[in-house]
């Protein structure tokens, strides 16, 4: 996968008459159509990829963290909780830079996915914790009365009931992660907004490229939000 897309390859800025650019209209459709494919490819290849894989990592790891804090012996649970607190309470930009330089041999895109996944896992673990705590005490008592194994209790009773109330919040964190992806520029990953800037800079045009980037964000976020809403309703009806 290409991690850098050079917008300047297409137009050589030295060939462009600056006066002409400044006098050109506010919105240039030709340029917009010209720039769109690059921006869109960066959107799919970086922004979406990081969000989708990062969200999956966060959703799974978040659940693991939440369960570990509940089932581990106290001192260990305390350690997990404070590591999670530390990650949650420090800025993701700092984490990106730190991990990028601590693991210089790793591909920047992989680092991006891991940092986003772990960072948001610490948020999602809190959502799961609230979901797990919302499972009524009587449910746990019924599992004891039936002598169910810990594995079956979690998999068949607690997690399914906890998830019902967590879906909207988890979805919102996934959308937050999506909107945080431009931070990837600090470790040199050419995600959509960076590419948009690179595409516009040589010709001193910014309106088109950033509008396209913004609309692409909206085009992905909005349907996702609607989907989460639907899913939430469906889960509510199922019980």
């Amino acid at each position, binding site marked *: 996968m290409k991690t850098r897309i050079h917008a300047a390859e297409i137009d050589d800025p030295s060939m462009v008459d600056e006066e002409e650019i400044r006098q050109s209209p506010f919105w240039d459709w030709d340029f917009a159509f010209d720039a769109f494919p690059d921006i869109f490819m960066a959107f799919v290849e970086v922004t979406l990829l990081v969000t989708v894989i990062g969200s999956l990592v966060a959703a799974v790891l978040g659940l693991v963290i939440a369960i570990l804090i509940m089932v581990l012996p106290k001192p260990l649970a305390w350690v997990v909780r404070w590591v999670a607190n530390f990650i949650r309470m420090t800025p993701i930009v700092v984490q990106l830079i730190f991990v990028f330089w601590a693991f210089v041999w790793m591909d920047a895109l992989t680092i991006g996915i891991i940092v986003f996944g772990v960072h948001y896992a610490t948020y999602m673990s809190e959502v799961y914790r609230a979901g797990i705590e919302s499972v*009524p005490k009587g449910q746990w008592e019924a599992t004891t009365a039936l002598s169910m194994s810990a594995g079956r209790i979690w998999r068949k009773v607690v997690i399914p009931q906890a998830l019902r109330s967590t879906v909207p919040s988890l979805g919102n964190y996934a959308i937050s992660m999506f909107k945080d992806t431009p931070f990837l520029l600090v470790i040199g990953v050419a995600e959509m907004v960076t590419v948009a800037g690179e595409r516009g800079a040589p010709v001193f045009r910014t309106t088109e490229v950033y509008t396209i980037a913004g609309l692409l964000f909206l085009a992905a976020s909005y349907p996702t939000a609607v989907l989460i809403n639907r899913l939430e309703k469906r889960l509510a009806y199922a019980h």
Partner: protein
Amino acid sequence: MPTPTDAAGIDTEAAASSSPPDTPVIEFVDVEKSFGSNVVLKDLNFQVAQGERVTLIGPSGSGKTTILRLVMTLEELTGGYIYIDGEPLTHENRDGKRVPVSKKEQKKLRTRIGMVFQQFNLFPNMTVLENIIEAPIHVLGQTKKDAIAKAHSLLDQVGLPDKADAHPSSLSGGQQQRVAIARALAMDPEILLLDEVTSALDPEVVDDVLNILRQVADTTNVTMLIVTHEMGFARDVSHKVMMFDGGHVVEEGPPDKIFTNPEQERTRKFLSAVLGH
């Protein structure tokens, strides 16, 4: 008002229970339970024999429900010992020292005990059938086919043959409680704990649920420990009634005696308050 059939039922039970060696099914020895500084039960000693049905009555806060919850290991025992079939449930007495039993041992004993709760506690994310077959398959190791067949016959027994695929939320309270009874019975418990099973139900469905339990009492030899405010039911099904107050047994005896001719003034007062005369 014992009917002749009830009396006959009790007689046969009594005869059956005297034949095996007399290890009590449930035995409380010097049981003490406190929540923080609040002592709920103190120096409690009693035994329940095989097939015996014992009803615990008394004012709320007298510790009846706590006794059931201790047997089901839903509460931690803070003193003394509970034995199930002669085996220690939570702690064993090793030369006067209270030593906790292993989780594994406790779990093995616990599979012999079933409980029906006031609030049903069915799993809302499972169908009625899934609720019933979960533990028989994954705890007792029954085959899915056997568990399903048994579940259907239990659903017939509780009068809900066509509700196997329903979700608990689509059932009324009375129906949910009947499913909960079927779920407990699916484990073939040796001991069935009934914790105010009709207290959360609409008055008109209370009798449906009680009749099913009467039938279970008549057709099986399951040992029952019952907490209820339904005195008519207590009188019909139990061999023994224990009156509790303040964590102590005030009085115990056969239902006829306790309900018609109690020895203790405290029992008399409680019964007249509950029965409304």
